[in-house]
């Protein structure tokens, strides 16, 4: 009985251990699946907002008090706490956005009965504006809304500074000069540019040069002859002036020389009257709105004759009524178009998309604008109703077309796939095409696989089938050490040591591809002339020792003959030759170097697995083949390779997966140039390297940040697909050939 009890106890403890082991192992297995899913979900979560469309929320509307019938200008501070309106009577009022209460009332210095006819903001970053009156007076002033922090919180203190006031000369008739339309810009050097249309319809230009404090004045009417100018704009740098006419003609003036504006080009956009013109951030793209409601973007494109010509890039969703105003964002390529029926549309110039389309009011909108952070839209309508919308459009550039399609970027001769996420200034247009990155990854992988697959598989065949045991025992651990080499070391050696060396002996290295096979075949032919009984007496493994001088000889011949070949065939300078004849620039860190380096990292993986697969082919099969009179090579080719094909395929795919995901080597050994060119002599930028380079600099939550996460997701999907496909095909091959 007692014995029974102890037996019972013994089995109890065995079962308990079993149960615990089972739980532990199951938990581990599920843990792996859960963590991979978690990574996937995190990547999806981070990149999902890219697909979000712009959205708008109506926050508040109320009538503005103490202002005249005609509001010419409106704007807000960057915290969206106060806004201002400038009316026809010159009253500049500041209000609290939250309740519409008056904060400050200012007045521009106008004469008795004098009315403002036009006003224009002159900078994207600052609230500097100019206003023109019916007596020819132009007042230039700057609004500042300064945030003051105190114990009670943040207070925005508005103020108005009149910068300068001058009066335009009379058109020569008795009526005082009317500033009917006004365009104004104050550039970064604080030089100011005014362009206006007087009541006769003449166009005038006034330039104040801040450097030498000189003022220049021009009348441009001669250029227009009898055409009526209906819209004008100045670029934010002040060096371009565009005027659009009743007939749809556009005139482009360069103002580089303050003393003589130069008419650069004229062109016709639509047949309709141009009703509104505006330069976008970056001073490249021009938005044209006409009196039929069409909205188009144009920018200068270099023609084959090296001549800049304004070209239509996008046509946006049209308005049902004439476009009256265009407001640009100070942060990106967003802009608002407003028609005279109260419709407002938000567009994004890079992608050509109209993101929002809404009715801000039932009455014509007199003044509107994007808030300084582009997170809100304000508008004042004909009933002096103020409306504020909250705008949520964090990633306008990341449409599907923007990420995967060709996009016509400013300054490019045609639509292209470009990755260039950051530029020198805030005005930079981000170019986030993922195609160059995907292409780069595939290109690096291609060259790595071209180099590594033959070597690794041949080596695996040699080691598993032909080499003597002692040699196999030496080679296998060596290759495993190769696998353990940190990729940063390989990248470092490839990028800093090998690539300059490669460049110096370029022709020599390239000739190796010719001389190695030639010398090798010669060596084999010579070897065959040795009497057979001498040959067979050789110990296996010696062939490797015999090959070393052969390979060394081939390399020596290549290096030695390299310059001669270069001189004879490539005019003594191969790099120059490929540039002039093939249009390819040679980069020191090129795809060949990466192919070698990445291949070096991939070889051990393919070799180890392929060698295993080949060794696992039962000896009985090779014996059967040999006993049937097949030679060693016939046996390998007809029996062993097919039987191991599943394993070799899996090995290659695993190597492929490694090459796709490899980061450090492609980062260090390429120039990281995101170009779409399969040429081996230039570099590429792989997805992995791009993530590594750019994620530290990408603002969290920004478009670049999310696009990089999306790239990571793509990489994840890539490797997932590669692994799945490889295991599926590998399984089929195994079922077909490897049932032993």
């Amino acid at each position, binding site marked *: 009985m007692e014995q029974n009890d102890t037996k019972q106890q013994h089995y109890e403890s065995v079962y308990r251990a079993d149960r615990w082991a089972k739980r532990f192992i199951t938990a581990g297995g599920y843990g792996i699946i859960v963590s991979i899913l978690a990574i996937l979900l995190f990547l999806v979560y981070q990149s999902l907002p890219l697909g979000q469309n712009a959205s708008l929320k109506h926050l508040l509307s109320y009538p503005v008090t103490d202002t005249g019938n005609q509001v010419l200008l409106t704007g807000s501070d960057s915290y969206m706490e106060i806004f201002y309106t400038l009316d026809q009577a010159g009253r500049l009022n500041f209000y609290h956005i939250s309740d519409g209460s008056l904060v400050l009332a200012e007045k521009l210095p106008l004469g008795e009965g004098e009315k403002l006819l036009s006003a224009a903001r002159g900078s994207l970053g600052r609230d500097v504006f100019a206003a023109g009156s019916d007596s020819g007076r132009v007042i230039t002033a700057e609004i500042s809304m300064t945030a003051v922090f105190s114990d009670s919180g943040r207070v925005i203190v508005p103020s108005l500074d009149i910068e300068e006031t001058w009066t335009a000369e009379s058109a020569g008739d008795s009526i005082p000069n009317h500033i009917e339309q006004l365009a104004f810009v104050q550039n970064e050097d604080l030089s100011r540019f005014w362009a206006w249309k007087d009541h006769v319809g003449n166009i005038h230009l006034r330039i104040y040069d801040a450097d030498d404090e000189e003022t220049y004045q021009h009348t441009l009417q001669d250029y227009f002859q009898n055409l009526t100018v209906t819209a004008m704009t100045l670029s934010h740098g002040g060096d371009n002036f565009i005027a659009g006419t009743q007939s749809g003609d556009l005139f482009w003036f360069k103002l580089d020389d303050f003393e003589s504006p130069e008419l650069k080009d004229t062109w016709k956009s639509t047949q309709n009257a141009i009703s509104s013109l505006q330069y976008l951030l970056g001073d490249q793209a021009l938005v044209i709105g006409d009196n039929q409601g069409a909205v188009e973007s144009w920018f200068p494109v270099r023609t084959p004759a090296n001549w800049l010509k304004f070209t239509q890039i996008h046509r946006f969703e049209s308005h049902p009524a004439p476009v009256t105003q265009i407001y640009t964002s100070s942060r990106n390529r967003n802009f608002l178009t407003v028609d005279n029926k109260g419709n407002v549309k938000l567009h994004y110039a890079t992608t050509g998309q109209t993101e929002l389309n809404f009715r801000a009011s039932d009455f014509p909108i007199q003044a509107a604008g994007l808030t300084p952070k582009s997170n809100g839209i304000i508008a004042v309508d004909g009933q002096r109703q103020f409306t504020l919308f909250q705008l949520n459009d964090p990633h306008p550039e990341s449409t599907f077309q923007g990420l995967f399609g060709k996009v016509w970027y400013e300054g490019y001769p045609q639509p292209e796939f470009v990755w260039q996420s950051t530029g020198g200034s805030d005005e930079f247009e981000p170019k986030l095409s993922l195609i160059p990155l995907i292409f780069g990854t595939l290109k690096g992988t291609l060259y790595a696989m071209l180099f590594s697959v033959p070597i690794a598989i041949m080596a695996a065949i040699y080691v598993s089938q032909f080499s*003597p*045991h002692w040699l196999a025992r030496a080679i296998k651990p060596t290759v495993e050490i190769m696998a353990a080499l940190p990729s940063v070391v390989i990248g470092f050696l490839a990028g800093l040591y090998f690539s300059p060396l490669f460049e110096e002996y370029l022709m020599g290295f390239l000739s190796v591809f010719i001389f190695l096979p030639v010398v090798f075949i010669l060596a084999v032919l010579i070897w065959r002339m040795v009497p*057979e*009984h001498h040959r*067979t007496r050789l110990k*296996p493994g010696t062939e490797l020792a015999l090959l070393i001088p052969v390979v060394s000889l081939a390399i020596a011949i290549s290096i030695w003959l390299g310059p001669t070949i270069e001189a004879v065939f490539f005019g003594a300078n191969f790099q120059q030759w490929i540039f002039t004849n093939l249009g390819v620039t040679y980069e020191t860190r090129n795809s060949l170097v990466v192919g070698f380096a990445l291949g070096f990292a991939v070889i051990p993986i393919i070799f180890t697995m392929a060698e295993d697969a080949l060794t696992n082919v*039962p000896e*009985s*099969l090779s*014996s*059967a*083949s*040999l*006993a*049937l*009179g*097949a*030679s060693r090579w*016939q046996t390998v080719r*007809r*029996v062993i390779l*097919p*039987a191991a094909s599943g394993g070799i395929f899996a090995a290659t795919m695993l190597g492929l997966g490694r090459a796709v995901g490899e980061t450090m080597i492609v980062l260090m050994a390429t120039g990281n140039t995101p170009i779409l060119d399969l040429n081996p002599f230039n570099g590429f930028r792989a997805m992995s390297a791009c993530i590594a380079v750019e994620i530290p600099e990408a603002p969290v939550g920004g478009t670049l940040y999310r696009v990089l996460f999306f790239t990571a997701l793509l990489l994840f999907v890539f490797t997932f697909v590669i692994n799945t496909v490889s295991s599926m095909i590998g399984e089929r091959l195994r079922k*077909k*050939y*490897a*049932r*032993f």
Partner: protein
Amino acid sequence: MVNIQEDIAVTTPTEPQEIPAAKPFLANERIVIETQRLDFYYNPEAHALKNINIQIPDKKVTAFIGPSGCGKSTLLRCFNRMNDLIAGAYLTGKVLIDGEDVYDSKIRLEELRKNVGMVFQKSNPFPMTIRENVTFGPKVNGITGKDELEEIVVSSLKQADLWREVKDRLDASALDLSGGQQQRLCIARTLANKPEIILMDEPASALDPISTGKIEETINELKKDYTIVIVTHNMQQAARISDYTAFMMLGEMVEMDSTKRIFTNPTVKMTEDYITGRFG
């Protein structure tokens, strides 16, 4: 490893006992395989065959019997030089097939093995179709004609008594056949090379009695056209199918005689002890 001195030794009349005289029971046979002072070493410490002098007659079944590890398979593998694959192994002496030393450097290994076919203990069809298995040998030996290959497939499978069973599924995987069929396919595969000699290394040891019976029938059919050397553990099998039997023990050839005589009236006591089951 054949050196000149040994060549002299074999032909020197001062050591007449070294030249194996034609055994009286083989007097009327044509000798196909002959070994002279054959010593085989897996490595210098493992002396697997000791001074084997054996003559194997044409178009007869010769069985090698003996306890495990006695060297009968090793001896068999000397005839088609399959032992070459073993690293570090070497031999001295001569193996003559049709009077030619197979270890001579002039011999083409592929030709030798085509001529001396082999069936292994464990059936080892290639993971290919039945047809591909049969045509493998002819193809690697340079036969490419489609009709010729087809002809070989049919005749080989017929000779191996497999044709009736597989004629409708020649393009099915060989691995779908039963164990006995697989082994007969291996025999057919060997026959496809049109060899002179077939070596069989315990061809039925892994099979059930019915399959074994079929293999034995096949062997009986084949001996009309082929010289068959079979290694077997199964003494009844040796008794049933062989014309001559050689008994080996610890790497030495103890006795060879007609099967009838070995099983009824062996000369050496050890043979009798083995046959009657006193050890084994």
